[in-house]
């Protein structure tokens, strides 16, 4: 462990003269300078704080759920409160945290830098997106405080069309949050197309940018359908429209179609950015050009487009037509192809690379393992005959947590470590960051591996109570969640300590080839002090090493 800390310290030391440059994007002081900023980096930081707060809130609900399930019967809350707890956990984590997490926070910060632009294409729209997010969050907060949203995060009718008025607030909040996501998407697609620096053609685009681009395409094309769905739900609730509620002559399965037309692609809004970060980290700490760069890049776009064709696999037991069920089950298998392409290319990148096990790399490697489990169990669930049995059991819960937490959250934290020094100009403690990683990795697996077993034995999801013979596994799962929670607390203090007492970071502590490492840490207000021109690819380590040799020779 100490060797890595030393190597960072060394890099920091050699780059100390580079850090003399004091003016950076954090220089302007005062609240107003933040609230009216159009700088993508500051907006990214504000988004980061916002999503981390949401993550905390969602995490508290998660721990409440697991504590309730520690013992059979009522433990700390009533069945109604339990319904609200899992609804709010889901809604907060999905809409307030995961969807904006990587794109709006890290993407906002790094996408323009990684394409050598001064800012995103529409900086004011970017700030507007943050404010829209805040308004949506306020609506959600009202729903949380009024405390009677208990439909599950999916808002299935007729639950939602008959539930209490608080559902109106939550649906309205998510409706608004959707527009924040759409604006981010419009901004990113335009930025990638129009704002690339000289010399930065598509085949030199960092893989993180490719992933963000694919994500943005989905955000633009899918999110409006969520908006209209929730709008129809709101009208249904207020006027009894009769489109979704069977008692009024509506079709509840139609709501599921509407909902999943957005929410399945939204799953890729969540996972593609995670894959994007992992592609960067794996290449960086193997010190080589990613194996099959083109395939990794294009598989992101393929996942984005295929993701629109498979939403029905959430509805196999909802009474859909058998033709639709068969078509959806078949198409679902297709998504496995680009996902598999990615996993194999990452592994091939590791092969004969010079691997450094830094904290971000540990997270990236965890991602590959956990995402593979999450993805492969997804194949089980996409298989029609298996899904009929496993539908709405803990198997499904474990599956999507392996993808969402084991995938996206792990990648998000990995990315946070990877770019921490660039964003804040401070070094974090590798040693304690690794402790946090170990706790998170172990805690996560204990929590959710046991849920695979629970589900396959017939434990249905969203149940307040369970039979005694599930007690052991539920106990494991709850204890795992406490370990996981502890891991996040340690992580929080590691990052806090770095902010307060961390050493200054050099511009390129790991000596990496990515474009974002060419600027100072933290970056200049205009990202690069001089106009950026891409003279080599972001993974051309052979060129980077040549430059270093030349510099050493000169010295």
């Amino acid at each position, binding site marked *: 462990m100490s060797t890595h800390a030393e190597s960072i310290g060394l890099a920091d030391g050699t780059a100390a003269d580079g850090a003399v440059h004091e003016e950076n994007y954090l220089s302007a002081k005062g609240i107003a300078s933040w609230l009216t900023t159009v700088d993508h980096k500051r907006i990214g930081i504000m988004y980061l704080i916002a999503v981390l707060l949401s993550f905390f809130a969602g995490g508290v609900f998660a721990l409440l759920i697991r504590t309730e399930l520690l013992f059979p019967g009522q433990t700390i809350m009533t069945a109604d409160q339990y319904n609200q707890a899992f609804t709010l956990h889901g809604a907060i984590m999905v809409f307030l945290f995961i969807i904006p997490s990587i794109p709006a926070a890290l993407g906002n910060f790094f996408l323009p830098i990684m394409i050598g*632009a*001064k*800012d995103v*294409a*529409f*900086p004011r*729209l970017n700030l507007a997106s943050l404010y829209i997010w805040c308004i949506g969050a306020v609506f959600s907060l009202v729903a949380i405080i009024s405390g009677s949203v208990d439909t599950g995060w999916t808002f299935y009718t007729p639950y939602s069309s008959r539930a209490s008025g608080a559902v109106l607030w939550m649906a309205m909040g998510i409706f608004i949050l959707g527009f924040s996501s*759409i604006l981010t*998407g*419009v*901004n990113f*697609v*335009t930025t990638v*197309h*129009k*704002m690339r620096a000289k010399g930065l053609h598509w085949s030199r685009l960092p893989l993180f940018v490719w992933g963000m681009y694919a994500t943005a395409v989905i955000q*633009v*094309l*899918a*999110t*409006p*359908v969520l*908006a*209209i*769905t929730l*709008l*129809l739900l709101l*009208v*249904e609730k207020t*006027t*009894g*429209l*009769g*489109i979704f509620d069977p008692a*009024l*002559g*509506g*079709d509840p399965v*139609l709501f599921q*179609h*509407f909902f999943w037309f957005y929410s399945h692609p939204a799953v890729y809004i969540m996972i593609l950015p995670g894959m994007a970060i992992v592609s960067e980290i794996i290449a960086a700490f193997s010190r080589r050009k990613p194996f099959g760069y083109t395939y990794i890049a294009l598989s992101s776009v393929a996942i984005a487009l295929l993701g629109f064709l498979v939403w029905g696999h959430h509805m196999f037991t909802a009474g859909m037509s058998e033709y639709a069920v068969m078509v959806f089950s078949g198409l679902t298998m297709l998504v496995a192809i680009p996902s598999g392409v990615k996993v194999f290319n990452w592994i091939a990148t590791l092969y004969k690379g010079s691997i450094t096990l830094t904290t971000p790399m540990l997270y990236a490697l965890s991602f590959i393992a956990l995402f593979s489990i999450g993805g492969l169990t997804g194949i089980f669930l996409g298989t029609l005959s298996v899904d009929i049995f496993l539908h709405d059991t803990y198997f499904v819960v474990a599956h999507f947590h392996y993808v969402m937490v084991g995938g996206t959250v792990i990648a998000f934290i990995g990315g946070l470590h990877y770019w921490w020094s660039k964003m804040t100009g401070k070094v974090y403690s590798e040693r304690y960051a690794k402790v946090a990683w170990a706790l998170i990795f172990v805690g996560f697996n204990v929590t959710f591996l046991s849920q695979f077993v629970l589900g396959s034995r017939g434990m249905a999801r969203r149940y307040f109570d369970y039979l005694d013979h599930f007690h052991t596994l539920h106990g494991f799962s709850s204890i795992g969640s406490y370990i996981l929670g502890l891991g996040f607390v340690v992580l929080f203090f590691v990052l806090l300590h770095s902010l307060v007492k961390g050493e200054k970071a050099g511009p390129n502590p790991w000596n990496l080839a990515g474009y974002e490492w060419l600027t100072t840490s933290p970056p200049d207000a205009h990202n690069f002090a001089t106009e950026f021109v891409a003279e080599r690819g972001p993974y051309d380590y052979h060129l980077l090493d040549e430059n270093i040799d030349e510099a050493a020779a000169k010295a």
Partner: protein
Amino acid sequence: MESSSSKERSWFQHHFASPGQQLSAAKLGMWLFLAQEVLFFSGIFVAYGIYRTHHPEAFSIGSHLLDWKLGGLNTVVLLFSSLTAALAVRSSRIGDTRATSRYLLLTIICACIFLVVKYFEYSAKFSHGLLPGKFFDPHDAGDLPYHVRSFFGIYFVATGVHGLHVLIGIGYFIFLLVRNNQGRFSPAYNTPIDMGALYWHLVDLIWIYLFPLLYLID
């Protein structure tokens, strides 16, 4: 344009490398926004498609309760406003500020006529109890099949959301008119008018489909 003073080029945003880049970025952004609008409305069209195939007779009866002449009038009004919006873009590109103002004003007037006609249509429906959802209470239309209310539900959501877009369009065009009168636009820079017109044509496009689908069911 290179010789123009810095004040005249105040529209140029410095995170772009050139005005050309700024314009093409704005255009792509706008088309992405329009794509988003198409998918937003697609939900209404899907609901329409499913309920019409399930209940063709109810939709036919519901459609006959609407006044196609008013719908047709509104179609002509909106098509004309699309023409004036296109002409506004044209005249701003060739630097005819006065003509631009005239066309913008015409577009706003047409949009207002559209909403006034819509108001009369709505109030006629309200007075006959042809309201969405649980307020549906047709007291003098005879015995209607149950799903006529689905038709009216979709009618009100579709025209309501579309009307909201018209309202937003009016607001934006008033903003454009004020800006144009201030002399902010020139052949070198008329992007906001261009974008406003693109938005307005999309609102027109939606109505081109809504008119036959709602008013003209056999």
